[in-house]
Protein backbone atom coordinates (compact mmCIF):
# COMPACT_ATOMS: atom_id res chain seq x y z
CA UNK A 1 0.00 0.00 0.00
CA UNK A 2 1.18 3.49 -0.84
CA UNK A 3 1.82 5.33 2.40
CA UNK A 4 1.92 8.72 0.70
CA UNK A 5 -1.60 8.78 -0.66
CA UNK A 6 -3.89 11.62 0.31
CA UNK A 7 -6.81 9.30 0.81
CA UNK A 8 -6.02 5.80 2.00
CA UNK A 9 -8.60 3.10 2.59
CA UNK A 10 -7.47 -0.11 4.19
CA UNK A 11 -10.06 -2.85 4.32
CA UNK A 12 -12.81 -0.38 5.08
CA UNK A 13 -16.03 -2.07 6.10
CA UNK A 14 -19.52 -1.00 7.09
CA UNK A 15 -22.25 -3.28 8.35
CA UNK A 16 -25.70 -1.89 9.09
CA UNK A 17 -28.21 -3.50 11.38
CA UNK A 18 -31.63 -2.95 9.95
CA UNK A 19 -34.82 -4.30 11.35
CA UNK A 20 -36.84 -6.65 9.23
CA UNK A 21 -40.43 -5.75 8.80
CA UNK A 22 -42.94 -8.35 7.82
CA UNK A 23 -46.13 -7.30 6.13
CA UNK A 24 -49.47 -7.43 7.89
CA UNK A 25 -50.98 -5.75 10.90
CA UNK A 26 -50.13 -8.42 13.46
CA UNK A 27 -46.52 -8.42 12.39
CA UNK A 28 -46.24 -4.66 12.61
CA UNK A 29 -47.73 -4.60 16.09
CA UNK A 30 -45.31 -7.32 17.12
CA UNK A 31 -42.45 -5.27 15.71
CA UNK A 32 -43.36 -2.39 18.02
CA UNK A 33 -42.09 -4.46 20.89
CA UNK A 34 -39.76 -6.99 19.45
CA UNK A 35 -37.74 -6.41 16.36
CA UNK A 36 -35.85 -8.81 14.21
CA UNK A 37 -32.63 -7.46 12.87
CA UNK A 38 -30.56 -8.47 9.94
CA UNK A 39 -27.12 -7.38 8.95
CA UNK A 40 -26.54 -5.53 5.71
CA UNK A 41 -22.96 -5.48 4.50
CA UNK A 42 -22.91 -2.12 2.74
CA UNK A 43 -19.15 -1.95 2.29
CA UNK A 44 -16.96 -5.00 2.55
CA UNK A 45 -13.26 -4.59 2.95
CA UNK A 46 -12.59 -1.90 0.37
CA UNK A 47 -8.99 -0.73 -0.09
CA UNK A 48 -7.56 1.86 -2.43
CA UNK A 49 -5.35 4.93 -2.40
CA UNK A 50 -5.92 8.29 -4.04
CA UNK A 51 -3.03 10.68 -4.68
CA UNK A 52 -3.25 14.42 -4.16
CA UNK A 53 -4.81 16.18 -7.14
CA UNK A 54 -6.42 13.09 -8.66
CA UNK A 55 -10.00 13.08 -9.93
CA UNK A 56 -11.40 9.63 -9.32
CA UNK A 57 -14.77 8.35 -10.48
CA UNK A 58 -16.57 6.05 -8.14
CA UNK A 59 -18.99 3.79 -9.98
CA UNK A 60 -21.52 1.21 -9.01
CA UNK A 61 -25.23 0.54 -9.22
CA UNK A 62 -27.66 1.76 -6.55
CA UNK A 63 -26.89 0.22 -3.20
CA UNK A 64 -23.34 -0.72 -4.16
CA UNK A 65 -21.91 1.14 -1.18
CA UNK A 66 -20.67 4.31 -2.89
CA UNK A 67 -22.43 6.80 -0.66
CA UNK A 68 -21.62 4.82 2.48
CA UNK A 69 -17.94 4.89 1.53
CA UNK A 70 -18.01 8.63 0.83
CA UNK A 71 -19.76 9.26 4.14
CA UNK A 72 -17.12 7.33 6.03
CA UNK A 73 -14.38 9.29 4.27
CA UNK A 74 -16.14 12.57 5.11
CA UNK A 75 -16.39 11.55 8.76
CA UNK A 76 -20.16 11.13 8.90
CA UNK A 77 -20.09 7.41 9.60
CA UNK A 78 -17.96 5.21 11.79
CA UNK A 79 -16.79 2.14 9.90
CA UNK A 80 -17.49 -1.28 11.34
CA UNK A 81 -14.01 -2.46 10.42
CA UNK A 82 -10.85 -1.50 8.59
CA UNK A 83 -9.22 1.89 8.54
CA UNK A 84 -8.98 5.04 6.44
CA UNK A 85 -7.05 8.27 6.52
CA UNK A 86 -7.70 11.47 4.60
CA UNK A 87 -4.88 14.03 4.57
CA UNK A 88 -3.45 12.10 7.50
CA UNK A 89 -6.61 12.50 9.59
CA UNK A 90 -8.97 9.79 10.74
CA UNK A 91 -12.20 11.17 9.24
CA UNK A 92 -14.71 9.97 11.85
CA UNK A 93 -12.86 11.77 14.63
CA UNK A 94 -14.20 14.87 12.89
CA UNK A 95 -11.40 17.17 13.97
CA UNK A 96 -12.01 20.79 13.00
CA UNK A 97 -8.75 20.95 11.06
CA UNK A 98 -9.93 18.03 8.94
CA UNK A 99 -13.43 19.38 8.40
CA UNK A 100 -12.06 22.77 7.36
CA UNK A 101 -10.30 21.14 4.42
CA UNK A 102 -13.00 18.92 2.99
CA UNK A 103 -16.39 19.32 1.42
CA UNK A 104 -19.14 16.86 0.65
CA UNK A 105 -21.81 17.72 -1.87
CA UNK A 106 -24.84 15.47 -1.99
CA UNK A 107 -26.95 15.91 -5.10
CA UNK A 108 -30.14 14.98 -3.29
CA UNK A 109 -29.72 17.09 -0.16
CA UNK A 110 -29.48 20.83 0.29
CA UNK A 111 -27.40 22.80 2.70
CA UNK A 112 -28.56 26.20 1.45
CA UNK A 113 -31.28 27.99 3.39
CA UNK A 114 -34.47 27.63 1.47
CA UNK A 115 -36.20 30.96 2.03
CA UNK A 116 -33.39 33.43 1.57
CA UNK A 117 -30.83 34.07 -1.19
CA UNK A 118 -27.84 31.74 -1.53
CA UNK A 119 -25.58 34.71 -0.83
CA UNK A 120 -26.79 34.72 2.79
CA UNK A 121 -25.90 31.06 3.17
CA UNK A 122 -22.45 31.89 1.79
CA UNK A 123 -22.02 34.56 4.47
CA UNK A 124 -22.92 32.03 7.16
CA UNK A 125 -20.36 29.60 5.74
CA UNK A 126 -17.75 32.34 5.72
CA UNK A 127 -18.25 32.78 9.45
CA UNK A 128 -18.25 29.05 10.15
CA UNK A 129 -15.08 28.37 8.16
CA UNK A 130 -13.50 31.63 9.30
CA UNK A 131 -12.62 32.60 5.74
CA UNK A 132 -10.68 35.87 5.65
CA UNK A 133 -12.65 38.72 4.05
CA UNK A 134 -10.29 39.15 1.11
CA UNK A 135 -10.08 35.46 0.27
CA UNK A 136 -13.85 35.18 0.55
CA UNK A 137 -14.38 37.97 -1.93
CA UNK A 138 -11.80 36.58 -4.31
CA UNK A 139 -13.20 33.05 -4.23
CA UNK A 140 -16.76 34.25 -4.51
CA UNK A 141 -16.02 36.45 -7.53
CA UNK A 142 -14.35 33.53 -9.18
CA UNK A 143 -17.20 31.13 -8.43
CA UNK A 144 -19.75 33.66 -9.63
CA UNK A 145 -17.90 34.00 -12.89
CA UNK A 146 -17.17 30.32 -13.50
CA UNK A 147 -20.60 29.09 -12.55
CA UNK A 148 -22.41 32.11 -13.97
CA UNK A 149 -24.12 32.85 -10.68
CA UNK A 150 -24.42 36.61 -11.05
CA UNK A 151 -28.16 36.68 -11.61
CA UNK A 152 -29.12 34.00 -9.13
CA UNK A 153 -27.25 34.38 -5.84
CA UNK A 154 -29.49 37.19 -4.69
CA UNK A 155 -32.76 35.38 -5.33
CA UNK A 156 -34.38 33.23 -2.64
CA UNK A 157 -33.20 29.66 -3.13
CA UNK A 158 -36.75 28.28 -3.23
CA UNK A 159 -37.27 30.18 -6.49
CA UNK A 160 -34.30 28.64 -8.29
CA UNK A 161 -34.38 25.77 -10.75
CA UNK A 162 -32.76 22.48 -9.78
CA UNK A 163 -29.71 23.22 -11.91
CA UNK A 164 -29.29 26.73 -10.52
CA UNK A 165 -29.61 25.40 -7.02
CA UNK A 166 -26.96 22.76 -7.65
CA UNK A 167 -24.57 25.43 -8.90
CA UNK A 168 -25.14 27.41 -5.71
CA UNK A 169 -24.68 24.27 -3.61
CA UNK A 170 -21.34 23.69 -5.33
CA UNK A 171 -20.31 27.29 -4.69
CA UNK A 172 -21.27 27.00 -1.01
CA UNK A 173 -19.17 23.85 -0.75
CA UNK A 174 -16.11 25.40 -2.37
CA UNK A 175 -15.92 28.81 -0.67
CA UNK A 176 -13.44 27.56 1.88
CA UNK A 177 -11.28 26.04 -0.85
CA UNK A 178 -11.34 22.44 0.36
CA UNK A 179 -8.34 20.28 -0.49
CA UNK A 180 -10.53 17.22 -0.77
CA UNK A 181 -13.91 17.29 -2.47
CA UNK A 182 -16.42 14.46 -2.21
CA UNK A 183 -19.20 14.72 -4.76
CA UNK A 184 -22.13 12.35 -4.46
CA UNK A 185 -24.24 12.50 -7.62
CA UNK A 186 -23.58 16.21 -8.23
CA UNK A 187 -25.51 16.23 -11.52
CA UNK A 188 -28.55 14.31 -10.31
CA UNK A 189 -31.69 15.53 -12.05
CA UNK A 190 -29.89 18.36 -13.83
CA UNK A 191 -30.36 18.85 -17.58
CA UNK A 192 -27.64 17.95 -20.07
CA UNK A 193 -26.38 21.49 -20.70
CA UNK A 194 -26.11 22.17 -16.99
CA UNK A 195 -24.39 18.82 -16.45
CA UNK A 196 -21.76 19.94 -18.92
CA UNK A 197 -21.31 23.24 -17.10
CA UNK A 198 -20.91 21.57 -13.76
CA UNK A 199 -18.45 19.06 -15.18
CA UNK A 200 -16.38 21.79 -16.77
CA UNK A 201 -16.36 23.66 -13.51
CA UNK A 202 -15.20 20.69 -11.46
CA UNK A 203 -12.37 20.05 -13.93
CA UNK A 204 -11.38 23.71 -13.77
CA UNK A 205 -11.42 23.75 -9.99
CA UNK A 206 -9.26 20.65 -9.85
CA UNK A 207 -6.77 22.14 -12.27
CA UNK A 208 -6.57 25.47 -10.50
CA UNK A 209 -6.37 24.42 -6.87
CA UNK A 210 -5.12 20.87 -7.22
CA UNK A 211 -8.06 19.72 -5.15
CA UNK A 212 -8.49 15.98 -4.95
CA UNK A 213 -11.93 14.91 -6.15
CA UNK A 214 -13.79 11.70 -5.47
CA UNK A 215 -16.99 11.62 -7.48
CA UNK A 216 -19.92 9.26 -7.77
CA UNK A 217 -22.38 9.52 -10.60
CA UNK A 218 -25.00 7.65 -12.50
CA UNK A 219 -24.11 9.52 -15.62
CA UNK A 220 -21.23 7.83 -17.33
CA UNK A 221 -20.52 11.06 -19.20
CA UNK A 222 -19.60 12.72 -15.89
CA UNK A 223 -17.03 10.06 -15.27
CA UNK A 224 -15.56 9.82 -18.75
CA UNK A 225 -15.28 13.61 -18.99
CA UNK A 226 -13.68 14.17 -15.61
CA UNK A 227 -11.90 11.14 -14.32
CA UNK A 228 -8.66 9.63 -15.47
CA UNK A 229 -9.21 6.81 -13.06
CA UNK A 230 -12.26 4.88 -12.03
CA UNK A 231 -13.06 2.63 -9.13
CA UNK A 232 -15.95 0.24 -9.53
CA UNK A 233 -17.70 -1.28 -6.55
CA UNK A 234 -20.59 -3.68 -6.47
CA UNK A 235 -22.29 -5.29 -3.48
CA UNK A 236 -19.80 -3.42 -1.31
CA UNK A 237 -16.78 -5.03 -2.95
CA UNK A 238 -14.14 -3.46 -5.12
CA UNK A 239 -14.36 -4.81 -8.66
CA UNK A 240 -11.99 -2.64 -10.59
CA UNK A 241 -9.50 0.15 -10.00
CA UNK A 242 -7.64 1.73 -12.91
CA UNK A 243 -7.80 3.90 -16.01
CA UNK A 244 -10.85 3.96 -18.22
CA UNK A 245 -8.86 2.51 -21.13
CA UNK A 246 -7.68 -0.34 -18.91
CA UNK A 247 -11.23 -1.10 -17.96
CA UNK A 248 -12.21 -1.88 -21.53
CA UNK A 249 -8.96 -3.77 -22.05
CA UNK A 250 -9.35 -5.92 -19.02
CA UNK A 251 -13.06 -6.37 -18.76
CA UNK A 252 -14.35 -5.93 -22.25
CA UNK A 253 -11.88 -7.45 -24.70
CA UNK A 254 -14.32 -7.16 -27.57
CA UNK A 255 -15.34 -4.74 -30.30
CA UNK A 256 -18.68 -3.81 -31.71
CA UNK A 257 -19.12 -4.43 -35.44
CA UNK A 258 -22.02 -2.46 -36.89
CA UNK A 259 -23.39 -3.60 -40.25
CA UNK A 260 -25.82 -2.20 -42.71
CA UNK A 261 -26.93 -4.88 -45.17
CA UNK A 262 -28.59 -4.66 -48.58
CA UNK A 263 -31.52 -6.85 -47.68
CA UNK A 264 -33.24 -7.74 -44.43
CA UNK A 265 -34.36 -11.26 -45.50
CA UNK A 266 -31.03 -12.89 -44.92
CA UNK A 267 -30.72 -16.64 -44.53
CA UNK A 268 -27.18 -16.73 -43.25
CA UNK A 269 -26.72 -17.48 -39.54
CA UNK A 270 -25.28 -14.29 -38.09
CA UNK A 271 -24.35 -15.94 -34.81
CA UNK A 272 -21.40 -17.63 -36.55
CA UNK A 273 -19.66 -14.22 -36.73
CA UNK A 274 -20.33 -13.07 -33.20
CA UNK A 275 -23.00 -12.33 -30.59
CA UNK A 276 -25.88 -10.36 -32.10
CA UNK A 277 -26.62 -7.56 -29.65
CA UNK A 278 -29.21 -5.75 -31.73
CA UNK A 279 -31.04 -6.27 -35.01
CA UNK A 280 -33.30 -3.76 -36.67
CA UNK A 281 -34.21 -4.57 -40.28
CA UNK A 282 -30.92 -4.24 -42.14
CA UNK A 283 -28.96 -2.74 -39.28
CA UNK A 284 -27.14 -5.27 -37.15
CA UNK A 285 -24.70 -4.98 -34.26
CA UNK A 286 -22.35 -7.82 -33.45
CA UNK A 287 -20.10 -8.27 -30.44
CA UNK A 288 -16.82 -9.82 -31.55
CA UNK A 289 -13.80 -10.82 -29.44
CA UNK A 290 -11.02 -8.31 -29.97
CA UNK A 291 -8.39 -10.74 -31.27
CA UNK A 292 -10.77 -12.12 -33.93
CA UNK A 293 -12.01 -8.78 -35.15
CA UNK A 294 -10.00 -8.49 -38.37
CA UNK A 295 -10.65 -12.10 -39.40
CA UNK A 296 -14.37 -11.80 -38.73
CA UNK A 297 -14.63 -8.49 -40.58
CA UNK A 298 -12.97 -9.88 -43.72
CA UNK A 299 -15.25 -12.95 -43.61
CA UNK A 300 -18.31 -10.72 -43.30
CA UNK A 301 -17.21 -8.54 -46.19
CA UNK A 302 -16.81 -11.54 -48.50
CA UNK A 303 -19.84 -13.53 -47.35
CA UNK A 304 -22.53 -10.91 -46.74
CA UNK A 305 -24.05 -8.14 -48.92
CA UNK A 306 -22.65 -5.30 -46.85
CA UNK A 307 -23.56 -1.67 -47.57
CA UNK A 308 -21.71 -0.22 -44.63
CA UNK A 309 -19.49 -1.59 -41.85
CA UNK A 310 -17.92 0.10 -38.83
CA UNK A 311 -15.85 -1.26 -35.96
CA UNK A 312 -15.91 0.53 -32.61
CA UNK A 313 -15.10 0.19 -28.92
CA UNK A 314 -18.10 -0.59 -26.80
CA UNK A 315 -19.46 2.39 -24.87
CA UNK A 316 -18.36 2.59 -21.25
CA UNK A 317 -21.92 2.02 -20.03
CA UNK A 318 -21.95 -1.36 -21.68
CA UNK A 319 -18.62 -2.31 -20.19
CA UNK A 320 -19.74 -1.38 -16.69
CA UNK A 321 -22.98 -3.21 -17.28
CA UNK A 322 -21.00 -6.30 -18.17
CA UNK A 323 -18.84 -5.95 -15.08
CA UNK A 324 -21.92 -5.92 -12.87
CA UNK A 325 -23.55 -8.80 -14.69
CA UNK A 326 -20.36 -10.82 -14.38
CA UNK A 327 -20.18 -10.07 -10.66
CA UNK A 328 -23.74 -11.15 -10.09
CA UNK A 329 -23.17 -14.60 -11.59
Amino acid at each position, binding site marked *: MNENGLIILDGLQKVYRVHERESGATASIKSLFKRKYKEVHAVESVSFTVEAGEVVGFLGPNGAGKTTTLKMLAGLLHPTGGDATVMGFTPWKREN*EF*LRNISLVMGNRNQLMWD*IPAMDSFVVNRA*IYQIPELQFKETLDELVELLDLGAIINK*PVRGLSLGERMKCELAAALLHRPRVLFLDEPTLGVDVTMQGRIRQFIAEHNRKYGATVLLTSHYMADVTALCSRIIVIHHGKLLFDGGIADLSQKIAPFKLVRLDLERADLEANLEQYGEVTSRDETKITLRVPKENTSAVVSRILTELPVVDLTVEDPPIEEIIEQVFRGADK
Partner: protein
Amino acid sequence: MRHLKLLSVFYRSSIQTDMEYRADFFTRIIASLLGLLMNVGAFSIAFHYAGKIGGWTFPQAMVLLSIYYLMDGLIEMFIAPNMRAVMEHVRQGTLDYILLKPISAQFMSSFRTVNIWRLVNVLVGVGLSFYTITQRGLVIGATEAFMFAVTLACGAVIVYSFWLCLVTLTFWFVKLDNIEQIVWQAFEAGRYPIDVYPIWLKNTLTYVIPVVFIITVPAQALAGKLSMSYLLVSMFVALSTLVGASAFWRFGLKHYTGASA
Protein backbone atom coordinates in the same frame (compact mmCIF):
# COMPACT_ATOMS: atom_id res chain seq x y z
CA MET B 1 -15.81 35.57 21.11
CA ARG B 2 -15.84 33.54 17.95
CA HIS B 3 -19.10 31.97 19.03
CA LEU B 4 -20.68 35.37 19.66
CA LYS B 5 -19.78 36.38 16.13
CA LEU B 6 -21.24 33.15 14.78
CA LEU B 7 -24.35 33.71 16.83
CA SER B 8 -24.89 37.13 15.30
CA VAL B 9 -24.39 35.73 11.79
CA PHE B 10 -26.79 32.87 12.51
CA TYR B 11 -29.47 35.11 13.96
CA ARG B 12 -29.13 37.67 11.21
CA SER B 13 -29.73 35.10 8.48
CA SER B 14 -32.56 33.59 10.46
CA ILE B 15 -34.28 36.94 11.02
CA GLN B 16 -34.02 37.48 7.29
CA THR B 17 -35.88 34.22 6.77
CA ASP B 18 -38.58 35.34 9.21
CA MET B 19 -38.98 38.62 7.34
CA GLU B 20 -40.06 36.55 4.34
CA TYR B 21 -43.09 35.53 6.37
CA ARG B 22 -44.55 38.76 7.65
CA ALA B 23 -48.08 37.39 8.03
CA ASP B 24 -46.70 35.26 10.85
CA PHE B 25 -46.04 38.45 12.80
CA PHE B 26 -49.67 39.55 12.78
CA THR B 27 -51.12 36.12 13.54
CA ARG B 28 -48.63 35.91 16.42
CA ILE B 29 -49.90 39.17 17.91
CA ILE B 30 -53.52 38.08 17.67
CA ALA B 31 -52.80 34.62 19.09
CA SER B 32 -50.83 36.08 21.98
CA LEU B 33 -53.47 38.60 22.98
CA LEU B 34 -56.28 36.04 22.72
CA GLY B 35 -54.35 33.58 24.87
CA LEU B 36 -53.61 36.30 27.39
CA LEU B 37 -57.28 37.23 27.64
CA MET B 38 -58.31 33.62 28.22
CA ASN B 39 -55.70 33.04 30.88
CA VAL B 40 -56.34 36.24 32.79
CA GLY B 41 -60.06 35.50 32.58
CA ALA B 42 -59.66 31.97 33.93
CA PHE B 43 -57.44 33.18 36.75
CA SER B 44 -59.76 35.99 37.83
CA ILE B 45 -62.75 33.61 37.89
CA ALA B 46 -60.85 31.09 40.00
CA PHE B 47 -59.65 33.75 42.41
CA HIS B 48 -63.10 35.30 42.57
CA TYR B 49 -64.33 32.19 44.38
CA ALA B 50 -61.21 31.50 46.41
CA GLY B 51 -59.25 34.45 47.70
CA LYS B 52 -56.06 32.42 47.79
CA ILE B 53 -55.08 29.32 45.87
CA GLY B 54 -52.22 27.26 47.30
CA GLY B 55 -51.12 30.25 49.34
CA TRP B 56 -50.89 32.50 46.27
CA THR B 57 -52.94 35.70 45.95
CA PHE B 58 -54.39 36.87 42.63
CA PRO B 59 -51.64 39.44 41.93
CA GLN B 60 -48.97 36.85 42.79
CA ALA B 61 -50.60 34.37 40.47
CA MET B 62 -50.59 37.05 37.78
CA VAL B 63 -46.86 37.46 38.23
CA LEU B 64 -46.62 33.72 37.74
CA LEU B 65 -48.68 33.96 34.58
CA SER B 66 -46.52 36.76 33.23
CA ILE B 67 -43.38 34.68 33.82
CA TYR B 68 -45.12 31.84 32.04
CA TYR B 69 -45.61 34.14 29.05
CA LEU B 70 -42.09 35.43 29.21
CA MET B 71 -40.61 31.94 29.41
CA ASP B 72 -42.93 30.63 26.73
CA GLY B 73 -41.78 33.46 24.48
CA LEU B 74 -38.12 32.80 25.19
CA ILE B 75 -38.52 29.08 24.52
CA GLU B 76 -40.43 29.65 21.28
CA MET B 77 -37.96 32.28 20.21
CA PHE B 78 -34.64 30.62 20.95
CA ILE B 79 -35.03 26.96 21.86
CA ALA B 80 -38.03 25.44 20.08
CA PRO B 81 -37.16 26.40 16.48
CA ASN B 82 -33.72 24.84 16.84
CA MET B 83 -34.93 21.67 18.49
CA ARG B 84 -37.58 21.23 15.81
CA ALA B 85 -34.94 21.84 13.15
CA VAL B 86 -32.69 19.11 14.55
CA MET B 87 -35.53 16.58 14.46
CA GLU B 88 -36.27 17.60 10.89
CA HIS B 89 -32.57 17.34 9.99
CA VAL B 90 -32.41 13.82 11.36
CA ARG B 91 -35.43 12.78 9.34
CA GLN B 92 -34.24 14.40 6.12
CA GLY B 93 -30.61 13.45 6.51
CA THR B 94 -29.47 17.06 6.43
CA LEU B 95 -27.94 16.78 9.89
CA ASP B 96 -24.94 15.61 7.85
CA TYR B 97 -24.32 19.18 6.75
CA ILE B 98 -24.10 20.29 10.36
CA LEU B 99 -21.73 17.44 11.22
CA LEU B 100 -19.52 18.42 8.27
CA LYS B 101 -18.91 21.91 9.62
CA PRO B 102 -15.75 22.64 11.60
CA ILE B 103 -17.65 23.84 14.67
CA SER B 104 -19.39 22.13 17.56
CA ALA B 105 -22.46 20.31 16.25
CA GLN B 106 -24.28 20.99 19.52
CA PHE B 107 -23.61 24.71 19.28
CA MET B 108 -24.73 24.92 15.68
CA SER B 109 -27.81 22.77 16.24
CA SER B 110 -28.84 24.76 19.30
CA PHE B 111 -28.30 28.29 18.08
CA ARG B 112 -28.72 28.15 14.33
CA THR B 113 -32.10 29.90 14.25
CA VAL B 114 -34.20 32.37 16.17
CA ASN B 115 -37.92 32.95 15.69
CA ILE B 116 -38.08 36.72 15.90
CA TRP B 117 -41.88 36.96 15.81
CA ARG B 118 -42.11 35.19 19.15
CA LEU B 119 -40.65 38.34 20.61
CA VAL B 120 -44.31 39.31 20.83
CA ASN B 121 -44.85 36.71 23.59
CA VAL B 122 -41.73 37.88 25.41
CA LEU B 123 -42.98 41.46 25.32
CA VAL B 124 -46.45 40.44 26.47
CA GLY B 125 -44.81 38.64 29.40
CA VAL B 126 -42.65 41.62 30.27
CA GLY B 127 -45.61 43.99 29.91
CA LEU B 128 -47.88 41.87 32.07
CA SER B 129 -45.39 41.49 34.89
CA PHE B 130 -44.60 45.20 34.75
CA TYR B 131 -48.29 46.00 34.92
CA THR B 132 -48.99 43.65 37.82
CA ILE B 133 -46.03 44.95 39.77
CA THR B 134 -46.88 48.63 39.36
CA GLN B 135 -50.54 47.89 40.14
CA ARG B 136 -49.49 46.55 43.49
CA GLY B 137 -47.18 49.50 44.01
CA LEU B 138 -44.20 47.18 44.35
CA VAL B 139 -40.67 48.34 43.74
CA ILE B 140 -38.22 45.78 42.38
CA GLY B 141 -34.85 46.19 44.02
CA ALA B 142 -31.52 45.41 42.41
CA THR B 143 -31.24 42.13 44.34
CA GLU B 144 -34.65 40.90 43.18
CA ALA B 145 -33.91 41.93 39.61
CA PHE B 146 -30.60 40.10 39.69
CA MET B 147 -32.04 36.98 41.26
CA PHE B 148 -34.89 37.05 38.80
CA ALA B 149 -32.56 37.32 35.80
CA VAL B 150 -30.39 34.46 37.06
CA THR B 151 -33.29 32.13 37.88
CA LEU B 152 -34.97 32.93 34.57
CA ALA B 153 -31.76 32.04 32.71
CA CYS B 154 -31.50 28.85 34.77
CA GLY B 155 -35.08 28.00 33.85
CA ALA B 156 -34.33 28.44 30.16
CA VAL B 157 -31.23 26.24 30.50
CA ILE B 158 -33.30 23.51 32.17
CA VAL B 159 -35.92 23.59 29.40
CA TYR B 160 -33.16 23.48 26.78
CA SER B 161 -31.43 20.53 28.45
CA PHE B 162 -34.65 18.59 28.82
CA TRP B 163 -35.57 19.16 25.20
CA LEU B 164 -32.07 18.35 23.98
CA CYS B 165 -32.28 14.98 25.73
CA LEU B 166 -35.57 14.22 24.01
CA VAL B 167 -34.22 15.37 20.63
CA THR B 168 -31.21 13.13 21.09
CA LEU B 169 -33.60 10.18 21.22
CA THR B 170 -34.40 10.81 17.55
CA PHE B 171 -30.91 9.56 16.74
CA TRP B 172 -32.28 6.13 17.60
CA PHE B 173 -35.93 6.41 16.71
CA VAL B 174 -35.78 8.94 13.81
CA LYS B 175 -39.41 9.98 14.02
CA LEU B 176 -40.69 11.22 17.36
CA ASP B 177 -43.26 13.91 16.69
CA ASN B 178 -44.88 13.60 20.08
CA ILE B 179 -41.72 14.59 21.87
CA GLU B 180 -42.66 18.21 21.72
CA GLN B 181 -45.91 17.42 23.53
CA ILE B 182 -43.95 16.03 26.47
CA VAL B 183 -41.98 19.26 26.76
CA TRP B 184 -45.07 21.44 26.61
CA GLN B 185 -47.15 19.32 28.97
CA ALA B 186 -44.42 19.54 31.57
CA PHE B 187 -44.08 23.25 30.93
CA GLU B 188 -47.82 23.92 31.14
CA ALA B 189 -47.87 22.38 34.59
CA GLY B 190 -45.67 25.23 35.73
CA ARG B 191 -48.25 27.85 34.85
CA TYR B 192 -50.12 27.32 38.10
CA PRO B 193 -48.76 27.81 41.59
CA ILE B 194 -46.88 24.60 42.34
CA ASP B 195 -48.55 24.38 45.76
CA VAL B 196 -51.95 23.67 44.23
CA TYR B 197 -50.85 20.19 43.19
CA PRO B 198 -51.03 17.10 45.41
CA ILE B 199 -47.78 16.32 47.13
CA TRP B 200 -46.73 13.45 44.81
CA LEU B 201 -47.18 15.62 41.72
CA LYS B 202 -45.44 18.50 43.40
CA ASN B 203 -42.45 16.29 44.14
CA THR B 204 -42.42 14.96 40.59
CA LEU B 205 -42.44 18.49 39.21
CA THR B 206 -39.64 19.48 41.54
CA TYR B 207 -37.26 16.56 41.41
CA VAL B 208 -38.02 14.44 38.35
CA ILE B 209 -38.83 17.07 35.76
CA PRO B 210 -37.65 20.22 37.52
CA VAL B 211 -40.54 22.38 36.33
CA VAL B 212 -40.57 24.52 39.48
CA PHE B 213 -37.26 26.03 38.47
CA ILE B 214 -38.64 27.11 35.14
CA ILE B 215 -41.50 29.39 36.21
CA THR B 216 -42.26 29.24 39.92
CA VAL B 217 -38.75 30.00 41.12
CA PRO B 218 -38.24 33.03 38.84
CA ALA B 219 -41.67 34.29 39.88
CA GLN B 220 -40.73 33.91 43.53
CA ALA B 221 -37.49 35.76 42.86
CA LEU B 222 -39.38 38.63 41.31
CA ALA B 223 -41.81 38.75 44.23
CA GLY B 224 -38.87 38.86 46.63
CA LYS B 225 -39.86 35.52 48.13
CA LEU B 226 -36.76 33.57 47.11
CA SER B 227 -33.93 32.75 49.49
CA MET B 228 -30.31 32.86 48.39
CA SER B 229 -29.94 29.12 48.93
CA TYR B 230 -32.75 28.43 46.47
CA LEU B 231 -30.93 30.57 43.93
CA LEU B 232 -27.88 28.36 44.32
CA VAL B 233 -29.99 25.21 44.04
CA SER B 234 -31.51 26.59 40.86
CA MET B 235 -28.06 27.26 39.40
CA PHE B 236 -26.88 23.82 40.42
CA VAL B 237 -29.87 22.10 38.82
CA ALA B 238 -29.45 24.12 35.60
CA LEU B 239 -25.75 23.34 35.37
CA SER B 240 -26.12 19.64 36.05
CA THR B 241 -28.98 19.17 33.58
CA LEU B 242 -26.91 21.02 30.97
CA VAL B 243 -23.85 18.85 31.57
CA GLY B 244 -25.99 15.71 31.54
CA ALA B 245 -27.86 16.68 28.38
CA SER B 246 -24.65 17.58 26.53
CA ALA B 247 -23.10 14.24 27.45
CA PHE B 248 -26.22 12.42 26.28
CA TRP B 249 -26.16 14.40 23.02
CA ARG B 250 -22.55 13.40 22.37
CA PHE B 251 -23.38 9.80 23.12
CA GLY B 252 -26.36 9.96 20.77
CA LEU B 253 -24.28 11.52 18.03
CA LYS B 254 -21.80 8.68 18.28
CA HIS B 255 -24.65 6.27 17.78
CA TYR B 256 -25.98 8.33 14.87
CA THR B 257 -22.67 8.31 13.01
CA GLY B 258 -22.27 4.66 13.85
CA ALA B 259 -25.56 3.48 12.51
CA SER B 260 -27.30 5.87 10.15
CA ALA B 261 -27.59 5.13 6.48
